[in-house]
């Protein structure tokens, strides 16, 4: 019975549970599947990579002697003859949040063993992701056409271009890899691989990666586009 109480988060106190998890000469993170724990640790390392980019961006923005281009003007779009600031980025944000919502529901249906709905929701998530990458490609080509380069741009501080291409490029790469990952898992879900094994854990692990990509965008949106 004592072993049971250490496994159940609701019955033993947090700190006691924490020390037991690390001290009992057994596996840490009891009851957490290793696939999930390892995905979390990968995401932790990815956090540091993206943080390095954002801190680097902060450093160059604070130290440059040229005026920093105003993002809300750089990323404005002309719609119906009116210039709307930052509208494309706002739409991209909503697309990515929607994809996170459908992914969360896919995980839920996975654990309910609803094979078809899980696969369908994952494909919808991947489609949202592909839409996001498409809009990013549009944004890149627009800025490149306006003369923005990693080493120079017509609006102000030269560091703007390098930060923009590096940060959004690396994030876009993550989204693209995520789309491929999700489609692969969705195909295997639909084929019934996990039904036979009786374990839909992989859907949640893929979901963790996808939510992380959305999470990084929250920080990029705040610090690069809104600041």
């Amino acid at each position, binding site marked *: 019975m004592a072993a049971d109480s250490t496994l159940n988060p609701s019955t033993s106190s947090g700190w006691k549970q924490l020390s037991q998890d690390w001290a009992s000469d057994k596996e840490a993170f009891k009851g957490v599947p290793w696939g999930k724990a390892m995905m979390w640790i990968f*995401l932790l390392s990815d956090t540091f990579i993206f943080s390095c980019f954002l*801190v680097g961006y902060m450093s160059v923005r604070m130290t440059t002697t040229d005026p920093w281009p105003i993002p809300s003007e750089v990323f404005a779009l002309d719609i119906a003859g009116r210039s709307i600031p930052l509208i494309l980025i706002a739409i991209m944000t909503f697309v990515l949040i929607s994809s996170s919502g459908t992914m969360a529901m896919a995980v839920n249906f996975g654990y309910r063993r609803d094979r078809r709905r899980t696969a369908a929701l994952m494909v919808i998530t991947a489609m949202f992701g592909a839409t996001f990458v498409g809009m990013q490609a549009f944004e890149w080509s627009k800025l490149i056409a306006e003369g923005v380069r990693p080493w120079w741009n017509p609006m102000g501080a030269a560091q703007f271009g390098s930060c923009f291409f590096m940060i959004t490029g690396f994030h876009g790469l993550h989204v693209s890899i995520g789309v491929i990952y999700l489609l692969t898992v969705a195909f295997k879900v639909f084929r019934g691989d996990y039904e036979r094994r009786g374990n839909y854990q992989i859907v949640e692990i893929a979901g963790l990666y996808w939510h992380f990509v959305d999470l990084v965008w*929250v920080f990029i949106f705040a610090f690069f586009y809104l600041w």
Partner: protein
Amino acid sequence: MPHIEGQQHPIGLYLKIWGLLFVLSTMSYLVDYFHLHGMLRWSLIILFMLLKAGLIVSIFMHMAWERLAIIYAILIPPLCLLVLIGLMASEADYIFWARVFFFGQPAEALAGHP
């Protein structure tokens, strides 16, 4: 009672969080749209950002229901990034003025410099 595997939560919870994330994103967009400036702008951006990040990590990524050991293993290490941010920010002023005084770069960004 059937064997419960993984995280089981009602779909309604995810839909509510989804709606909340939409509202928060709209609000952070409006901060830019209405051209808020200075401390008000920065504090609102940070507030909405942290709320969104918190909702995604705790609900969508199920961190709220994980064991304390894994929560701390994942959430404590990024705190050392605050040290890096502090170091880089405190050095920034020095680099900026070194560029103005010793390299003769124009201080055009002076107005926007803290």
